[in-house]
């Protein structure tokens, strides 16, 4: 990997992409990982009709949950309370971090062990806690590697796919005392296991994300392979879970189809090692488990997506990452280029709501609209359609006809040059005399056409009007039946 790294800012999207495209090692790593994940998923869904049937069920479940979201959140609140789980509401990242800080101080906890949580990345938890002298230790192997190296996740399921085992060998040898240098992957994992055991054993607070919340039973459902999620939510005295307000489903039996859709779409596994259903802290007679369980429900822009009927579908997402695995743009520029917590097609449609359409204006354009993302989505989110709607919202200051309100940063990608160009186009095409005049002038002024136009001419020949307009050419066109005559006329005799 080159010394220069992509910036964690979606405004740098184009520069980031150029940086990654010029790095053959990174490109090979991404390509290899995407092909691997695509093949594994395909093997899990050999029958297209069976997949469609299961996906329809998953989509129905998520749509049903969103249609009933306020009621389900209230029901969840009641059940969590009965189960002895503390519920906190946070409107934005700052509020969520304040809750973490308050809990850490109350429990006098210098460290927190963390299971994998994208929402904690979204609020910048590690950075915020570090600013107050509290260390958040990543325990997912991939996240741990990145934390040691000061790097960021490039994929929501396989965060360190951009690293090779040689990279990891160097990182461990440099940062873990006594680790030594080895490229043996079994040995590297053993080193990670040993290094983190003591952290699990001593940390007072464990942090986790949540894959699904169940309103009916007041449960937090976590899906994982490594066991770090179980350790983080079991051994420390306090468990703090954080997730988005959209993660709730109505009943426990809804988990069965969503779980299988998630694992098969994400890593191409029929099941993960652990499905961890947490419905309360340690009871008086129990010997382990956290004494306190807290759940933080984060909005952070999700209610903006919820407000608009079309954008609401964004919240159906179960964070499997299949859309990025199948995206031809993501496979080339990788997850770091997006500069956001969630990269790829889902990142392009959720980030404008979580941040704003101003800083994320380029993300919806990072698609060829090939439709692969929409095809593989296990809950039927019409991703290409939403990309188009966000492109439109970026270019128009006024909300679209069916839209209730302007989005944050609506119209940010509006360009005066483009607006004028389209106005001129409309004028010309609506008035035949003007059009004829234009068609007469353009070929005659072709020498004035600008040779270098940034963007377009970086990889393409400059555009230049033809010597004769199409009209003029048609006027002198020889009918088909006299082609032979034409050939004869041009024959060099």
């Amino acid at each position, binding site marked *: 990997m080159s010394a220069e790294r992509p910036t964690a800012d979606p405004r740098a999207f184009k520069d980031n992409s150029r940086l990654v495209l010029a790095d053959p090692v990174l490109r090979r790593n991404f390509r290899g990982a995407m092909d691997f994940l695509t093949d594994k998923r395909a093997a899990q869904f050999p029958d297209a009709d069976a997949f469609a*049937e299961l996906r329809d069920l998953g989509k129905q479940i998520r749509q049903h949950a969103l249609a009933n979201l306020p009621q389900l959140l209230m029901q969840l609140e009641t059940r969590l309370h009965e189960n002895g789980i503390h519920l906190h509401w946070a409107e934005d990242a700052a509020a969520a971090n304040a809750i973490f800080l308050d809990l850490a101080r109350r429990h006098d906890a210098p460290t927190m062990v963390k299971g994998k949580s994208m929402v904690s990345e979204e609020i910048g938890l590690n950075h915020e806690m570090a600013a107050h002298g509290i260390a958040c230790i990543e325990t997912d192997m991939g996240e741990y590697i990145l934390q040691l190296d000061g790097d960021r996740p490039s994929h929501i399921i396989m965060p360190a796919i951009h690293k090779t085992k040689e990279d990891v060998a160097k990182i461990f040898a440099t940062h873990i005392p006594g680790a030594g240098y080895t490229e043996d992957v079994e040995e590297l994992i053993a080193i990670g296991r040993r290094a983190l055991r003591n952290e699990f054993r001593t940390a007072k607070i464990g942090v986790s994300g949540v894959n699904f919340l169940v309103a009916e039973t007041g449960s937090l459902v976590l899906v994982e392979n490594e066991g770090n999620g179980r350790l983080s939510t079991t051994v420390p005295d306090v468990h703090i879970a954080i997730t988005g307000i959209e993660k709730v489903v109505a009943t426990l039996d809804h988990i*069965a189809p969503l779980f299988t859709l998630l694992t098969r779409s994400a890593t191409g596994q029929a099941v993960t090692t652990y499905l961890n*259903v947490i419905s309360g802290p340690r009871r008086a007679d129990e010997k382990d488990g956290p004494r306190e369980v807290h759940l933080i429900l984060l909005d952070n822009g999700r209610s903006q997506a919820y407000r608009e009927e079309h954008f609401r579908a964004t919240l159906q997402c179960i964070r499997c990452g299949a859309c990025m695995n199948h995206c031809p743009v993501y496979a080339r520029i990788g997850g770091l280029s997006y500069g956001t917590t969630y990269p790829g097609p889902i990142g392009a449609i959720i980030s404008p709501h979580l941040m704003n359409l101003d800083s994320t204006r380029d993300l919806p354009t990072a698609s060829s609209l090939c439709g692969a993302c929409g095809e593989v989505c296990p809950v039927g989110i019409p991703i290409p359609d939403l990309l188009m709607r966000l492109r439109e919202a970026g270019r128009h200051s006024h909300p679209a006809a069916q839209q209730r309100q302007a989005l944050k940063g609506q119209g940010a990608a509006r360009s005066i040059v483009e607006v004028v160009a389209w106005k001129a186009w409309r004028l010309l095409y609506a008035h035949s005399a003007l059009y004829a005049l234009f068609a007469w002038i353009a070929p005659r002024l072709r020498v004035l056409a600008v040779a270098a136009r940034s963007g377009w001419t970086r990889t393409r020949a400059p555009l230049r009007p033809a010597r004769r307009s199409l009209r003029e050419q048609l006027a002198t066109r020889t009918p088909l039946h006299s082609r032979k005559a034409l050939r004869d006329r041009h024959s060099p005799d």
Partner: protein
Amino acid sequence: MNPADNARARSAILARLREAAPADTGTAPGVAAYYGRLATPERSSIATRFAERARSWRAEVVDCTAHNWAEALARIVAAKGIRHLLAGRTTPLAAGIAALAPATSLHWYDETMETFKPVLFDQIDAGISTTRGGIADTGSLIVWPDADEPRTLSLVPPIHIAVLHAHTLHETLYAAMQAQRWAGQLPTNALLVTGPSKTADIQRLLVYGAHGPKQLVILLLHGEAGA
């Protein structure tokens, strides 16, 4: 956190959602109908299919009966050189476990984890637990920790030995949830466990033994219910 801030955030978020929520709340998803349509594979017995699946996740499945499982356990303990075995004191397994050869020191999970940590983390080689059932479709174990068999019993030791009765197998997770009426009586922690812990986080290379147990041994007890 300030309770007033929390209440304010709560009402603001709920108000935004309520204002935008659709009038039509839709119909309940047809989960039961979907699973009803799934054909049950009939090529072999449910226990055979479970074992095949579980082995594909690198679980060791040992076929035995209600009468000889303790001997099977003794062989596993000897073969793996397990010197410190951890178990719950009042489970139906306790008598069988207690009869193990004295070369293995047996630990009962009697104290709270806080005081037990030095033994649990540094000494125990294997934890043995009961299971509430299994899922043939995926080769998964249903593990419901409780006061007698705490959560860490099947989590911290490098080897997890699980005892599974073949008559408690179900075809799918959905079938198990329905038959065992999960929704009404979930414990503080309910688990599906499928194989030993694993990771593919380094260059997509699959390695077993990440943070949880490195080995999973399933004693699959054949025979009549309650035998």
